[in-house]
């Protein structure tokens, strides 16, 4: 792992300890707020990221608390008045089966297994592993969202071309 945030992005590198989840959420919330995401979307995306981290801690590192985790948040301008949030979560755990992050089959409501995965898929547009990674896992979450109105910041140029923070697609 070699943390390098996209422009206007940020990386968090931390160990697979549940204690760190609240710190990750605080950073995610403020990152989305400064990018003018509304509060509802901010809370849903925060939930999706938290559940993704929880999965790595529980299933990837299986409770071992000193595994490395690297969360990268970036926002790419897209053509027109829309932009795309791209989240990458890298770990050094054993390779997860490629179907591990697939949307769970609808199940009886009181079966809690798969609930985290359900949340992630409900919130995000795309959920997949980066197939080009050799060691560990890189989970990619993407969400298209409208361009924010930024009343106090006229400096933000709205570019017409697609400048994604990463290069890989699902």
């Amino acid at each position, binding site marked *: 792992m070699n943390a390098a945030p996209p422009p206007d992005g940020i990386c968090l590198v931390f160990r697979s300890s*549940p*204690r760190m*989840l*609240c710190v990750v*959420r605080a950073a995610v919330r403020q990152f989305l707020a400064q990018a003018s995401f509304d509060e*509802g979307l901010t*809370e*849903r995306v*925060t*939930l999706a990221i*938290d*559940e993704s981290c*929880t999965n790595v*801690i*529980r299933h990837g590192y299986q409770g071992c608390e000193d595994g490395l985790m690297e969360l990268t948040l970036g926002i790419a301008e897209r053509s027109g008045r829309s932009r795309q949030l791209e989240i990458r979560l890298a770990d050094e755990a054993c390779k997860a089966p490629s179907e591990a992050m697939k949307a769970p089959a609808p199940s009886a*409501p*009181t079966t*809690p297994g798969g*609930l*985290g995965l*359900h*949340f992630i898929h*409900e*919130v995000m547009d795309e959920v997949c592993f980066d197939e080009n990674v050799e060691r560990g896992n890189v989970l990619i979450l993407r969400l298209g969202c409208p361009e924010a109105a930024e009343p106090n910041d006229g400096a933000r140029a709205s570019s017409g071309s697609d400048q994604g923070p990463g290069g890989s697609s699902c």
Partner: protein
Amino acid sequence: MLKVDRREVDAATVIAVEGEVDLYSSPQMREALLAAIKAGSARVVVDLTGVSYMDSSGIATLVEALGGLREKGRALVLAGLRPRVREVFEIAKLQTVFTLAESVDAALADG
């Protein structure tokens, strides 16, 4: 980071939770719920007024408690859900599985 308080009100146990419920903190809530189940009161009310965030581990903990109480013919009521927390129950499609109340008072009155 989570604050969990338990008190007995007539035949009910009220568990007041404050803070964010996640993988780190949900075991604290679980402990209080298991103690309340053991204590045997007919109705367990979880006061979520002070909860600003809940993830799937929090929901799973509440689902577990609901099962444990129902099989003994006892009730679990969730009181005072904030809109953001309520939305998590809705995404989980569990808002109708649980008995929800506006407030602890409503949960206790509605016996």
